[in-house]
């Protein structure tokens, strides 16, 4: 390899490095400045699903922020969107649920309820969601036995946090959609809405496509 070819190779390497996409910036709301634990990108996925589309969703009953308990079965007849988030007070999570907070009417249009689940304990989730200004949807704590519900769905990571995952369950309790998302990225709203549209379409045959 002569010098000119070497130089081209080296410059190409650095230009490629420049072009490579850097991590998107999440959790940049002024609301959480200095309050979230800054993290480097993590392994995108660190668990193995234990359920599949078409399966009956594992039932669960978890404590909520109102001091009572919420179970999946009480929402029979409604579409249920479950949003697992990894941990309170972390960047991406801190600007995921606040976005859903302005979508109550959208979920209602699809006869859907949103359940937020995290493995943090109730006091931590209470403080965190208060910082968001309060949330309209139930937030459930999967703290103890630690991550048991996440584990039953197959989204408990090896470090005890949950995956950033969306499960959509129909009124019969059947899982219709699963997105175990890259933990470092926020799932786009489009994927949730598209699935809810399919499930509420007159042409819906009860299958996921």
């Amino acid at each position, binding site marked *: 390899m002569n010098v000119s070819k070497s130089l081209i190779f080296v410059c190409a390497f*650095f230009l490629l490095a420049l072009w490579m996409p850097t991590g*998107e910036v999440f959790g*940049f709301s002024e609301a959480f400045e200095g309050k979230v634990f800054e993290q480097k990108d993590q392994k995108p996925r660190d668990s193995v699903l234990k359920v599949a589309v078409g399966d009956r969703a594992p039932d669960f009953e978890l404590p909520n922020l109102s001091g009572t308990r919420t179970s999946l079965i009480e929402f029979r007849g409604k579409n249920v969107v479950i949003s697992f988030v990894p941990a309170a007070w972390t960047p991406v999570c801190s600007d995921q649920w606040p976005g859903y907070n302005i979508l109550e009417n959208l979920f209602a249009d699809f006869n859907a309820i949103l359940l937020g689940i995290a493995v943090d304990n109730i006091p931590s989730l209470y403080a965190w969601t208060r910082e968001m200004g309060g949330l309209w949807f139930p937030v459930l704590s999967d703290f103890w036995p630690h991550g048991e519900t996440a584990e039953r769905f197959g989204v408990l990571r090896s470090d005890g946090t949950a995956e950033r995952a969306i499960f959509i369950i129909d009124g019969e309790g059947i899982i219709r959609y699963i997105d175990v998302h890259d933990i470092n990225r926020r799932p*786009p709203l*489009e994927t949730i809405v598209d699935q809810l549209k399919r499930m509420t379409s007159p042409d819906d045959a009860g299958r996921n496509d």
Partner: protein
Amino acid sequence: MKRLSEILATAFLCGMLVLSVSADVSEAAPPVGSEFPDVEIAVPDSKEHRNYLGLKRGESFRLSQVAADTLIVEVLSMYCPFCQAEAPAVNTLYAMIEDDPALREKVKIIGIAAGNTKLERDMFVDTFDIPFPVFADADFLFHKALGEVRTPYFLGVRITGGAATVFHSSLGAFEDPASFLSLIIERSRSNSAEVSP
């Protein structure tokens, strides 16, 4: 050996170039007096918004092409609770400008929805009934060019002769729309006599 040293020297220079360019697109908002990042934005589908910004139908435009002397740019996100809380005040600011014949044609507002898809942008716009154009910046391109600022972030931009220059830069909610508008007018005046009401 000489060849190797030339390669290493070139690699070092290229590396420094990469680092210097990277530093330009992160960390800090464009300072007052600097040129506003010359980012191309998709022309709005809405005829009303095209008319508001003085744009013709087309693929993309740059902010320096907007038909105004002063542009207020809000960097926001559907996922930002402070942006949600601030939305009614920004709408009031817009209404105050539109109701003032001396300002209406000279001062415009746009939003940049950082990291938001079109649907997420639409949900924010619909929820808060936002009348001014808000552009979805799903890939954070604009946001990175603006130094990855926190949200909401407000920039005042003076447009003259095809150039866009920052004259105001502030993080967080403003106190009240009337005071903020007075501040923008005052600062734009001190930078250009053309924008005075």
